[in-house]
């Protein structure tokens, strides 16, 4: 017999011992396995989920059905890891203020929060958040093969990165698509528009077709996340660029003026009354109540629209990608809710936070939360973060509002997005603010589009110059 090295001996004995254990204690394991079945998928990961058990962290989220679902299934994580999570639920704007205040005061109150990806460069500039590579590349913390980072929608990861490094984990997101009333289209013999010019035409045709209905709706509410969610897509569809090679802003260039004129023309002539103050819940309600013929906004609106209890348009709605602009581009948003790790936390809490984020963004969790129903009326998640799930027939069964819905969204997420859809610079809050004011000023005719954009451009130049 050849000399057995200590290692080989240990190896063998572990295997034998394991078999013995398995057969001897198997019945006990089997019993426990049924109750821990839900953890089985996670236990495949070659990390110790319980490495910081007993730690407690606080996470700040906004009220939204997907976060409600995450919160509802979080006890599974707590069981798995021994980490306790407290949630604070605050509306988006106040939540962001609180998160920023927390960062600025370095109080380390919130381990993570549901952040706006546009703010990540601000967070990074202030060194408030930890680069996720530190966790991803640590084999004790992450089983890369199991986690499969590449499966997470690439453009969302790009959006959540600053200078190529990932700072926030995408937990839930959306694509911007065109939603229209199929019945009205059929009634008028219209084809879904390919270009924005055609879109304007359909709006004109359908406007007041029954005496009341508005031809089209887009977000009008003044805000960096509201009207500045829609206009950048138009700007880029006209071939616009935010900055030139020297870093000077170009919002008042021809694509800017033309796209703003289009926006104003569309809403002033064919938009519903009061659209200047509308955010997407209002648009969605109006469409569901058949007061608006079509709109362009997040794909997540489908889950309400296709619910017969909440909408008159269930089963009558069509979905397609953003129409093309004159430059030939369709530009969807890259919006996603991203979760960073607070850099000020002590090590144990950072680890706990990372474990939670990993768990949240993992395939099993994303899938189970997608189909989870916290009450019989609950909607399903339409923003899972993994490409594989979008192609998964199980998931498709759940979100097949129309035969092509999933494909439309997936294609939009693959091809129509641009990670620089909005300028991802630390000064974004100021830029977004200035642009939001300008767009609304043009819409309500306080200024002409050219004037509004000239003023905004000057403001932005000043802001960038300071830096």
């Amino acid at each position, binding site marked *: 017999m050849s000399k057995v090295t200590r290692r080989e001996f240990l190896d063998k004995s572990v295997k034998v011992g394991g078999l013995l254990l398995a057969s001897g204690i198997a019945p006990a394991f089997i019993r426990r396995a049924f109750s821990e079945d839900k953890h089985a998928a996670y236990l495949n990961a070659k990390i110790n989920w319980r490495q910081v058990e007993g730690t407690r962290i606080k996470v700040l989220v906004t009220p939204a059905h997907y976060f409600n679902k995450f919160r509802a299934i979080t006890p599974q994580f707590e069981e798995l890891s021994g980490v306790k999570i407290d949630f604070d639920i605050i509306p988006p704007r106040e939540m962001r*203020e609180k998160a*920023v205040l927390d960062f*600025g005061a370095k109080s380390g109150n919130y381990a993570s929060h549901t952040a706006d990806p546009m703010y990540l460069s*601000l967070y990074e*500039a*202030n060194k408030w958040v930890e680069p996720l590579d530190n966790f991803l590349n640590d084999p004790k913390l992450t089983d890369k093969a199991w986690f499969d980072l590449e499966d997470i929608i690439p453009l969302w990861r790009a959006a959540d990165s600053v200078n190529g490094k990932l700072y926030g984990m995408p937990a839930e997101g959306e694509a911007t698509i065109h939603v229209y009333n199929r019945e009205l289209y059929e009634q008028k013999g219209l084809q879904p528009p390919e270009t924005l010019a055609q879109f304007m035409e359909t709006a004109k045709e359908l406007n007041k077709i029954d005496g009341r209905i508005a031809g089209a709706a887009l977000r009008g*509410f*003044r*805000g*960096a996340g509201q009207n500045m969610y829609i206009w950048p897509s138009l700007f880029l569809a006209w071939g616009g660029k935010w900055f030139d090679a020297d870093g000077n802003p170009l919002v008042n260039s021809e694509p800017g003026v033309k796209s703003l004129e289009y926006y104003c023309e569309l809403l002033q002539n064919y938009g519903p*009354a*009061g659209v*200047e*103050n509308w955010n997407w819940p209002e648009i969605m309600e109006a469409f569901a109540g058949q007061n608006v013929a079509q709109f362009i906004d997040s794909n997540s609106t489908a889950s309400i629209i296709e619910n017969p209890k909440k909408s008159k348009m269930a089963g009558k709605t069509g979905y397609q990608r953003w129409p093309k602009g004159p430059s030939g581009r369709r530009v969807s948003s890259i919006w996603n809710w991203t979760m960073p790790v607070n850099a000020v936390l002590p090590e144990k809490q950072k680890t706990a936070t990372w474990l939670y984020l990993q768990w949240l963004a993992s395939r099993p969790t994303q899938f189970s939360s997608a189909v989870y129903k916290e009450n019989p009326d609950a909607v399903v998640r339409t923003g899972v973060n993994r490409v594989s799930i979008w192609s998964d027939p199980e998931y498709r069964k759940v979100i097949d509002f129309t035969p092509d819905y999933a494909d439309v969204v997936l294609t939009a997420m693959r091809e129509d997005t641009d990670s620089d859809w909005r300028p991802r610079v*630390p*000064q*974004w*809050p*100021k830029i977004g*603010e200035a642009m939001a*004011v300008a767009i*609304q*000023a043009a*819409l*309500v005719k*306080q*200024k002409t589009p050219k004037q509004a954009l000239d003023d905004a451009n000057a403001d932005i130049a000043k*802001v960038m110059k*300071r*830096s």
Partner: protein
Amino acid sequence: MPAIATPPKVKYQKQWERFGYAMISPSMIFLVLVTTVPLVSLLVMSCFRIDLTYPPGNGWIGLENYLEMFKDARFWYSIRLTVIYTAITVALQVVVGLGLAMAFFRGFRGQGLMRVSVLLPMILAPVVVGLAWRTLILTPEYGILDYIAILLGFGSKPWLVDPTWALISVIIIHTWQWTPFAFLVFLASLNAMPQEPLEAALLDTRTSWQRFRYIILPMLRPAIVIVLIFRTMIALRAFAAIFSATGGGPGTATEILNLYSYRVSFNSLDLGYGAALGTVLLLITVGVSMIFFRMRRASIS
């Protein structure tokens, strides 16, 4: 202040003085502690650049924020809006409140119902008031006020969407919520007025207008000044109702100074400049209150 009761005996003087200080010290200590420190930090912050979007540029800059304010068109616009907003709403509250009080001070049936009704707006949380007006009352077609306007033939108005109308709307909302205060103050004042001068005036004067102007109005002066002081203070720093109704929009049409300071601090994340704006608002409020306070002292003597 009117003559106060002071004990006649001198030997109690010292005791009462000490007593006086003892009585005010808990509140004074509390107020000094809890308001002075943040106030000072506000002033100090206004002398720094604290721009979260560009940390390297932060630090002490003396009065530079104020110099920049001087050149800031949006600041001057918001000052203008603040003056218009405050002046109109306070004037309306006083005029309408006084007019209604004059109409009703001689007693009438249904007083209880009236009192409860006029109390309701003041009890409502301003943030709820703003939202309720925005979505349930002023929404085109669905809102009850807009619907009534359509019924009466005025047509739907762009209440919160047209810059001028938006300013009118927020003034209406604020006036709606706080006129009852003026109304009730004047009502009680009128009811408490001594009757003989009024009776005498009946013989002397010809018109009720003259009676009002020369007899009633002077007697009401203390009440009017009190209302002016409190309502102006509140109007200058109105926030919740406007914010939930229009957010300062459309564009910047309803962005009074308080709101502008908020947007600068919390949206643009320029905390130093936001603090400077807040300081200016504070100075304005104190200045105006001092003027009214002097008026009050004068009117008592």
